[in-house]
């Protein structure tokens, strides 16, 4: 009996969750990395609240981008090495759907914890209270973009083995609009204007990326496993 697409999606997601849950350090390390980067900045630029508060949102977002790059290997590397990825391409269900499942799990375990961690980082960097909701909102709608675009890059370079530096070259230009909107939203909140237009735009961008990126990921997987 053939599984429906929905069942296949569930199976992929359940499996990925289980794999990661058995090696929790993969989830924790990128978060600790973000915390470390955030800790470095007060030491580097001085602990005065006027400087820190102004750069806080940017620092947190840049840390998020870098941690996304850091955790990107996890997405497909093991699956590629043990042949799971090849099995997925052979499934009768659309590969894009299964890729979407993987992206969703990746976000659940890297993006969502980051959103939860953000208030702590904001506290450490003395972000004024007006910016908090905007920061959390941008992270909430922006991190899915991070996961989705990272997945494209990770799928493209998975067969290379030494994709790290190349991956940052491929992905960081694609992250720039995200960074600009996100920091713009927090900046708007800080100067007392509405942050929502930018957050909503980011949300739209996020939906568009989630809609289109699975197809790019699927195409990239097919290229890589050949």
């Amino acid at each position: 009996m053939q599984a429906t697409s929905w069942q296949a999606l569930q199976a992929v997601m359940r499996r990925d969750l289980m794999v990661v849950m058995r090696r929790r350090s993969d989830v924790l390390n990128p978060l600790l990395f973000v915390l470390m980067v955030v800790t470095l900045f007060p030491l580097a630029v001085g602990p005065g609240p006027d400087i820190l508060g102004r750069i806080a949102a940017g620092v947190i977002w840049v840390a998020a981008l870098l941690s996304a790059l850091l955790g990107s290997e996890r997405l497909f590397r093991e699956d590629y090495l043990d042949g799971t990825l090849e099995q997925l391409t052979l499934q009768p269900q659309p590969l894009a759907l299964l890729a979407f499942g993987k992206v969703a799990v990746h976000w659940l375990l890297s993006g969502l914890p980051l959103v939860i961690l953000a208030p702590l980082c904001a506290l450490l960097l003395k972000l004024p209270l007006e910016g908090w909701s905007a920061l959390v909102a941008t992270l909430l709608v922006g991190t899915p973009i991070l996961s989705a675009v990272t997945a494209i890059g990770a799928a493209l370079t998975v067969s290379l083995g030494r994709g790290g530096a190349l991956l940052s070259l491929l992905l960081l230009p694609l992250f720039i609009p995200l960074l600009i909107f996100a920091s713009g939203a927090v900046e708007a909140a800080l100067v007392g204007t509405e942050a929502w237009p930018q957050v909503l735009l980011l949300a739209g961008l996020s939906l568009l990326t989630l809609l289109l990126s699975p197809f790019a990921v699927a195409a990239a997987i097919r290229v890589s496993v050949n």
Partner: protein
Amino acid sequence: MWRWLHPYAKPEVVYRLLGRWLPWVSIGAAAVLATGLVWGLAFAPADYQQGDSYRIIFVHVPTAMFSMSLYIAMAVAAFVGRVWQLKMADWALAAIAPIGIVFTFISLFTGAVWGKPMWGTWWEWDARLTSQLILFFLYIGVLALYHAFSDNRTGAKAAGILAMVGVINIPIIRYSVDWWNSLHQGATLTVFERPPMANSMLIPLLTCMLGFALLAGALVMQRMRNEILRQELRRPWVKMELQQGEQA
């Protein structure tokens, strides 16, 4: 249409076709570019505000324009290669990318040189500069990915996917940076909004544009020929072609 297009999927046909066109396009590029540049740099009147330094426009604007066009051409080639599996399109991607990088770099460099006397700074984080810089990085990423794989086919396919993803990004970059800029400051950008040009400046500029377009075409064609030779090195027709070249 396929019956008509089909022969052009063969490397040797394209190679010879490009070989026939190349001299004409090259001569055209040299002639038009020389005319345009000499006219623009030496004979066009100086600007009443910017003096002679405005003459950078004759290099800056065409290269900036065609850096974008070349990216789109590259993405179209990637799309064709992806959909119809034409290896010729994959090679076109590799032929176009380096030219695009150079054009983007020239536009950035001349922009900086122009910016120093006009704005008082080599670099300003405003809309156009930033988007052009991102374009530069995108190009480099595509080229790096193309050469990262030991298998050429895989590299071309991977780079093609990245090029297509990047082209979706181009309008987003433009608008997002505009927004970002309007939020912070928009002072430096007004330099771009010059009054409509006088014909004595406009015509040499258009000539330069045509010249640079021909130059880009000629360079891409030459690189395409090289790429075809490199990829088909083991084929008999290449051997014959090279022998004929030696005899002639």
